[in-house]
Every structure is written in C-alpha cells, then in structure tokens.
C-alpha cells in the first residue's frame, strides 16, 4: 500500500470532491477527477492501474449522494455509452437550499425537538445530520419547547432493512406470522411505506404473493428480511398517507365492548381512550388489530372482561388459559437454583 494513502482523511477527500464538482460547469471526467482532486491524486498512477482508486470513487459517489448532494453525470454529445467520456458535476442551483426556505427561531426549536424523537438507528443519525445542515443557517432556536423529551423506538429488527429497501425500491422477502396464525409463511413484497400507528410500526407493501397491497406488523416478521436483488418502479407519492388512512378506517370500523373492575388500573387507563362509556362500567374501545388488543387486555387479568365481540373474548380467554397452564406446571430445568 502506498505510504501517502493514509495521509488524506476520508472527509478531506469527500470535501475536495464536492468542491471540485461544484466548481465545474461542464463536468469532470473520471480520469480528471482521479488525477487532480485532493485525496485521489496522491494515489493516481499514470500507468493506468487504478482499479482500487476506481472503486473508492464509486463508494465516495454513493456517500455524497446519500447526503442529498445532487451529483449528476453528463454524457458527451454523440458519445453516449462511453464511460471514459462521462462527466461528473454538482449543479450549484440544485445543491443550494432554495432561498425561499427560511425558518423562524420557533420553527428551528420545533425541528430540533423533532430530531431528538429518534434515539437509535438510521433515523437518529439522519435527523442529527439534518439538524447540522439547519444550523448552517445560523438561526438560534427559541425556548418554546424546552421541557420536553419525546421518544419513538424502532426496536423491531426488521425496521432498518425495510427502510433501506424502501428507499432503494428493492423487492424483499420475509417470513410473516399472520394474526392468529400458528405457521409463519414466506412473503415477497415491494415496500411502499413504513408507518407508526397506535404506537406500532407497520409496513405497507405490494404483496407479490397475492398481487395486492397489504399491511404487515413489524413485530410479526419472523427472522431476517432479505433483499431479492430485484427492484421495482416507485409509484406516486402518498403511500404513507394512504396506509395511515386505511389503518384509521379499520380502527373506526372495529369496536369492542369491555367491562372494567371499578377503581382498577384498567378502568383508569382504558376509560381514557374509550370512545364511549355505557351503563354498568362498560367501555367501548376501537381497535385495529384483534390479537394486539387481546394481548393488552390479557395483561389486565381479572380487571377486564370482554363482552363482545366473541372472537376477541375467545382470544383473551385462550391467552389466560395458556398463561395459567404455563405457570402451574412444574417449572422446567433449574427451578431449584433460583433465589
């Protein structure tokens, strides 16, 4: 490895590449970039053995585009298809934040708070980077939202691979355990949106197995999400909005009636989100997913009884039976060792 390779830091090479491509009107060919731009030129060989530098350049282009910088290619007139003559540039007008985009101190405060909502994964990293770009405007936030610490988790392992597939329009496969089902089944889908509804992350996708749009709960995806190597054409914008409005409609359409024990934790908490409180301590709860509601109602034990619908009632009863049985049998293995 050449000695001077380590002397130019990654960010210096990337920064120099961005500056060089912003400065050129007609674009630079790859040979021009590799032989003249800081960070490449030190490693450029006149004899043409530049394969690893070539690969470096490819990765750097990806990194730069990932930051939202419009790095474009221009084909030489009459020479389309000739990669040697392909020119690269960053049009300044598309790089600069449009002049009409300005922010008030209150808006900066709100955006900074929005960025703190994410504490993990790619959303956190990207919102921190967006805030860094916002700071470049030099606007001090006001103190209108001091005293808040909001947080959304993205703890399902499927979240990151699905988000990346969503942005790259990649067809993915995963194994999915349907609500109330016992056998996970493979699905092949085109991811269209990721949405959080009622505190749960869902994938909205075109399901190729049934050639229709379906919604999948991320928590029911079993095992790894895998890309297939195939991509699809992105559709019209608005898939996320569509997904949320379908979920809202479903939530509106499904209602359970339950009874809660007077004075219990269940009564306090469930009354707060009940759409109706009828006579005799009965509450009406809207829901989107029967199995998730059954899990939640089961956690309240004897403080909650489901009146209707029957399938929800049965789902809660069978949970209690299974839970009682699992904890009445002698504990497996090493009970004796426990404190």
């Amino acid at each position: 490895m050449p000695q001077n390779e380590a002397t130019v830091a990654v960010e210096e090479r990337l920064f120099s590449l961005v500056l060089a491509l912003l400065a050129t009107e007609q674009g630079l060919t790859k040979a021009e970039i590799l032989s003249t731009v800081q960070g490449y030129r030190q490693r450029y060989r006149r004899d043409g053995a530049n394969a690893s530098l070539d690969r470096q350049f490819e990765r750097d282009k990806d990194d730069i585009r990932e930051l939202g910088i419009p790095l474009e290619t221009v084909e030489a007139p009459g020479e389309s298809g000739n990669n040697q003559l392909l020119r690269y540039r960053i049009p300044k007008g598309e790089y600069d934040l449009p002049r009409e985009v300005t922010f008030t101190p209150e808006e900066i405060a709100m955006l900074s708070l929005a960025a703190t909502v994410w504490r993990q994964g790619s959303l956190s990293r990207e919102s921190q980077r967006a805030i860094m770009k916002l700071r470049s405007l030099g606007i001090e936030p006001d103190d209108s939202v001091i005293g808040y610490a909001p947080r959304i988790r993205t703890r399902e392992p499927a979240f990151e691979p699905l988000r990346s597939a969503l942005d790259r329009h990649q067809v993915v496969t995963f194994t999915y355990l349907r609500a109330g089902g016992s056998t996970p089944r493979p699905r092949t889908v085109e991811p269209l949106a990721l949405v959080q509804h009622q505190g749960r992350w869902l994938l909205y996708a075109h399901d190729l197995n049934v050639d229709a749009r379906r919604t999948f709960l991320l928590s029911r995806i079993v095992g790894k999400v895998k890309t297939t190597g195939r991509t699809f054409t992105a559709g019209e914008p608005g898939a996320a909005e569509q997904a949320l409005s379908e979920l809202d409609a479903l939530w509106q359409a499904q209602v359970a009636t339950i009874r809660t024990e007077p004075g219990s934790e269940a009564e306090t908490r469930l009354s707060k989100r009940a759409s109706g409180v009828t006579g005799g301590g009965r509450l009406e709860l809207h829901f989107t997913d029967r199995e998730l509601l059954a899990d939640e109602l089961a956690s309240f034990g004897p403080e909650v009884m489901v009146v209707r619908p029957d399938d929800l009632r049965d789902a809660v009863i069978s949970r209690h039976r299974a839970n009682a049985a699992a904890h009445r049998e002698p504990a497996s293995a090493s009970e004796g060792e426990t404190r």
Partner: protein
Amino acid sequence: MSEREPLQGRDKLALLLSLVPYLMEHGQVSVSDAAAYFGLEPEQIREAVRLIAVSGVPGETDAYQPDDLFDIDWDLFLDRDEIVLTHLVVLDDSPRFSSREAAALIAGLQYLSALPEQADRQVIGSLLSKLSIGASARPSEVAVEERTSDADLTTVRSAVAAGTQVEFDYVNARGEREHRRVDPLRIESLDDEWYLRGWCHTRAAVRTFRFDRMTGVQATERPISHHAGDVILPDALFEASDADLHVDVELAADSLPLIADYIASTERIEDDRVRATLRVAHYHRLKRLVAGLPGVITVVGPPAARAQVAEWSEEALARYEDPSPASSGDPGVS
C-alpha cells in the same frame, strides 16, 4: 445528548459543508460558541476549521494554488481560538436535505403533533412543506400517525411553562389510588405513552407518572419549589432500584427487545432460547407484563412469582365462568 455516536466520514462531510455558510454568516465567531451551537466538542470544530483552511479546488493549474483554497485568519485562530474566513471558494450556501434526512424530521414532527403547542397545526404544516422543498429528492415514505393532544397534557404543559404545581389522583400498578401534588418538570414520551417527570410533594422525591394513570388533573397557583436544575432527572424512564425483585424467565432470543427495560442479565440456553433475569419493582408489575405477552415469556422462578402470574390469569378465567361479580350478561338497554 449523551447517547450521541461518534461522527463518521459522511457526518464529518456534512459538518464541513454546514460550517462554511455558518462562518460566512457570522463573520467572526469563537470556537467555543461554534461548538456549543453545533452541539460538538471544541476540538471537533478546530479540526474541521483546519481542514477547511487547506481545502479548495484544483483550479486552472490543477495544482491547488493559494487562490483556489479557502483561508482563515490564522493568527486569530491560533492565538485567540476565534474563526474568520478570509477567502472563500465555490461554497456559499447551505446544502439541501437528503430525502432520508427530510423524512426523519417529517416523521418526528408528525409525532410532535400530540404536543399542545401544535394544537393549531400551523407550525407543523408549514414546516412539512418547507422540508419537502428543501430536500434534494422526494422525502421517503416514513410517517407517524398524527395525534391530537389531550386535555391533561395541555394542563400539565402550561404548568411546566408557568412554573406552578399540579395535583391529580394517581393509580399505581397495584391498583392503589392516591392524591399527588407535584412540581412538573419535564414531559417525556415513549411511543404512544406520555409521562410526567417531577418532584412529588406527597413522596418528597423525584417521580415519574404515566398520563394515562392520572385522573382529575388540576392546575394550581402555587409556584414550584423544586426546579429542573435543582434535581437530578435520570435519563432512563425506568430505573433499577436495590429494592427490586429478581425473577428468572425464559423466552425466544428474538423477543428480548420486548422486555429490554427490565433485563438484568441474560444467558443463552439453546440456539434461539434465552434465560433472562428481570428486575421488577413488585410482582404486580410482573404479572401484567407476562400476561400481556402470552406464550412469549415463561417465568421460571422463584415459585412465588410463578404462582402470582398463574393466579392473575386464573382469576380472570373465573370471571368468565362465574360472571356474577362483574356480570357479563347484558343488563338490558335502559
């Protein structure tokens, strides 16, 4: 933020591209002010400035002549830790957001629609469109359901801003109900649950309250006696205590994130099965946790914990078999 990860190459590039327009805007700024403003260490700013000062474009000669490079006032920088750009190259404006960056902020803003500040939705609506215009490509399809803020959150929020006490009835996980008087200090959330952190006068200690367990929330005129700066509000919502009970459970390795808040230690027993020791304040909490994750976790011991979990479900089943106490029969439409 204490959880911040170190900057990667891409993040450092974003810093360089953001720092230049910021410095242009300010004329002269101290390293410490710039660091505070960007939320970074002073040395990270110095490192970026040193790099900017020697960077530029190849220029007509392809030789990076002085005129093709940025420059700073080196004396000011080295002697007084102050930054002034004295020569500029190409860059003179803020960069756009990437589609993923814009999407992350947009989804965060949608989540914040639950804040009382957003009752009129104007700030968020206008920000959503500015972010879309300011992104170099269509923001990716990630969205969070917008909520309306509830009355209790609004009352408590006003009290936080005014520095006045609030009172409410609070039901704990044991079903015990108690009147509390609290200095509200911070409003926190985790997905769709909202919490109040504050100094509880009833307990004379810092406490965390779930909004959905409060009833009869009242604002008062009394000023708070403990301020956010006076008390330590731990970062974690759920804190371990020496008084916690330890419980051994078994579960599938995939399910560990569901109980991450309670885990004290884990040990793999088979390829995909894990034995974990959980910390819980009391078995009331445990039985709700386990019953709400049916078939996911099994309590292995101690025997008293197993018995309480089993009883919780058995009592529930008894209600369905003998519906007299909380009668299930239709009382008739009156």
